[in-house]
């Protein structure tokens, strides 16, 4: 017996020409996405490492690179959070700057390190919450809200820096800040055994954050409801999920993570400046997209995001080692992003084709459970 109910895909298909809001992309949520990234990263590490042995230098190459991976992974998670509901945050940079600013002011007033960090995270979360409220209450596109927010922060942050400090930067010497930002496992010793020198402590903060976010999405009610909201806001609303609250809190989460990344960057460089976050926007998208998070919402991959970031940073490091300048870097980053988008699309078309072929042969759509794997 054939599957008999024609699905009214017609209108959707046409809409997609302008707005690819298809929910039929579950096929692209493939786990091999992450496997592919791991293989690619391994190959690049071997290639770069053998061509340029300085790559293994813990102090000048490996350490800073892993620090970058740590910070940018959190940036990627910040974007991933809003992507999980099919929205975007263009103000990741601004929110990171705000986070850095908040932490700097608190630390400057003598707050202990942890309090300063919390203030920074809350400052970022507050910006995100404002965006979330505007998105839900005023029913405005997240894109525009966060774009406008980024403009406002672009002006606000330097203005506040100028107001609270004489220079354009705040440098604080709170106990623990330098250790957090610049220590590596080499500084941690048990007796006479110390860790390797190339692994910064920030990496552990980043991993802890990833674990919390991943657990939240995979195992908690709020995380599940958020993903379902991303899958279909309409259905979520009619399934008794408090959609408005989920959207607002996801924006706040995104802001909090961005704020955390800002604090981490400030800690790693030793001073807080308005330029924190300026470089965040592109990587924030690269990580999740390369990692398999869908732009349309409903699916996230924390590990994939981090691997995507790792790949990006690795390429960047490789280019620097080979003496390619900043212009090459930008060109390459943009190209990688375009390429990732294209492969996403190709995968999409392929999975559609195979399902089409299946139905042409008169059997119900193939039901490979691997295609349906939805994991955080």
């Amino acid at each position, binding site marked *: 017996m054939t599957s008999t109910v024609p699905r009214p895909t017609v209108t959707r298909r046409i809409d997609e020409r302008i707005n690819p809001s298809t929910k039929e992309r579950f096929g692209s949520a493939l786990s091999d996405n992450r496997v592919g990234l791991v293989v690619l990263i391994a190959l690049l590490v071997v290639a770069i490492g053998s061509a340029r042995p300085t790559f293994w230098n813990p102090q000048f190459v490996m350490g800073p690179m892993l620090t970058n991976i740590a910070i940018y992974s959190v940036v990627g998670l910040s974007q991933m959070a809003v992507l999980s509901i099919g929205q975007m945050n263009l103000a990741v940079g601004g929110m990171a700057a705000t986070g850095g600013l908040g932490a700097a002011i608190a630390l400057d007033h003598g707050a202990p390190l942890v309090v300063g960090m919390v203030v920074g995270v809350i400052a970022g979360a507050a910006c995100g919450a404002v965006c979330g409220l505007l998105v839900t209450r005023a029913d405005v596109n997240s894109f525009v809200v966060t774009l406008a927010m980024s*403009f406002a922060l672009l*002006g606000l942050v330097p203005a506040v820096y100028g107001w609270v400090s004489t220079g354009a930067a705040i440098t604080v010497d709170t106990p623990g800040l330098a250790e957090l930002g610049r220590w590596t496992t080499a500084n941690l010793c048990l007796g006479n055994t110390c860790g390797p020198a190339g692994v910064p402590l920030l990496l552990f903060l980043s991993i802890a954050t990833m674990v919390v976010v991943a657990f939240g999405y995979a195992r908690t009610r709020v995380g599940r409801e958020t993903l379902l909201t991303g899958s279909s806001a309409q259905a979520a609303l009619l399934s008794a999920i408090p959609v408005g609250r989920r959207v607002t809190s996801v924006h706040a989460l995104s802001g909090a993570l961005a704020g955390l990344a800002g604090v981490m960057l400030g800690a790693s460089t030793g001073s807080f400046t308005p330029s924190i976050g300026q470089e965040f926007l592109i990587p924030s998208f690269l990580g999740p997209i390369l990692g398999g998070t869908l732009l349309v919402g409903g699916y996230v991959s924390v590990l994939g995001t981090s691997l995507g970031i790792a790949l990006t940073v690795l390429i960047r490091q490789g280019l620097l080692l080979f003496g390619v300048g900043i212009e090459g870097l930008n060109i390459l980053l943009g190209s990688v*992003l375009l390429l990732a988008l294209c492969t996403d699309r190709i995968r999409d078309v392929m999975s559609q084709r195979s399902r089409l072929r299946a139905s042409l042969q008169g059997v119900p759509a193939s039901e490979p459970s691997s295609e349906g794997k939805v994991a955080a």
Partner: protein
Amino acid sequence: MSGDTTAADRSARARRWSAKDLLRRQTTTLVFVVIVGVVVLTVQSSGGFLSRISIETFFQFLAIPVVIGLAQMATLAVGQMNLAVGAIGGFAACLAGILMADAGLPVWLGAVVAVLAGLACGLINGVIVVLTQINGFIVTLATMTILSGVQYALVGTRTVTSDAWPQLQSLGSARPLGVPLIFWLSLAIAGLLSLAYRHALVARKMLASGGNPLAATLSGISNSRSLIAAHGLSGLLCGVAALLVLCSLPGVNKSIGGDWLLPSFAAPIIGGVALTGGGVAVLGTVLAATIVRLVDTARAAFQLDPSWVNLVIGAVVLGTVALGQANRRPKGLVRVRPTGPSRASTSEATPTGGVA
């Protein structure tokens, strides 16, 4: 029956122009703000703002914001965005500049190259959007990164001075009727666009695709073509902006276009262009660009930090969007309410049809 229709007809007629009225009201508000701004600045500077030099400077630096605002408007009209406005403009200006200064390209050809480079970049954006069917924002984010890299690769840290294109410079310093020629040029472009969006078939098709892609498809209008055309137009206008840069600035370097993003969005959004697509507001965009310019002038007059301009404009954009969207068709997250008979007409009201 006929009673039916005439009643409906009558009520339709009574409400007939309210959509246009909304847009007109917004335009009136903008004009009012412009007047207030001018008065405040004049009083503050005890008339100095109206001096010849001051007026010249004001319009000299208004031409480019107007054109890039229109460039953004062209993509907004089809429900897309172009983050690469600045990158395309910077790239086109630097490419033409390098070719004229280093490769000895004739100046007139350099001008053509600037415009055509912009057009080509826009078309590429459009083609990628259509092929990948991915949100135009992400695509232009990628091309923006690439183009700014290319721009840097072209000029590096050097500033290519305008000595290589004296003819363009003399155009840029021309002041017919006491107002810079390049501003007249930007106004002419605005006028041309306004006419085109009203009368040209291809532009009407773009608006149809932006307003309702499904209806467009059912009428045999190719949405893909509309998207490519809109991105192409946007790129073309970026190229024109690049040409204006060559005319008016002392040289080109890697930072050209770097700060265009905010003004390019601010002008059309404040000017009343719906972000959902389907409408344009040329006059509104020009007026809003003028207001942004007034804010910048005021900032200089009160000797404030330049970042305050970003703050003010960002806040105004946020406010405009939040307030304006409330009156518009809900197209955001939650659209539970199916259009019922009693509410349909109000909830679908979109003040976007007219071309102001």
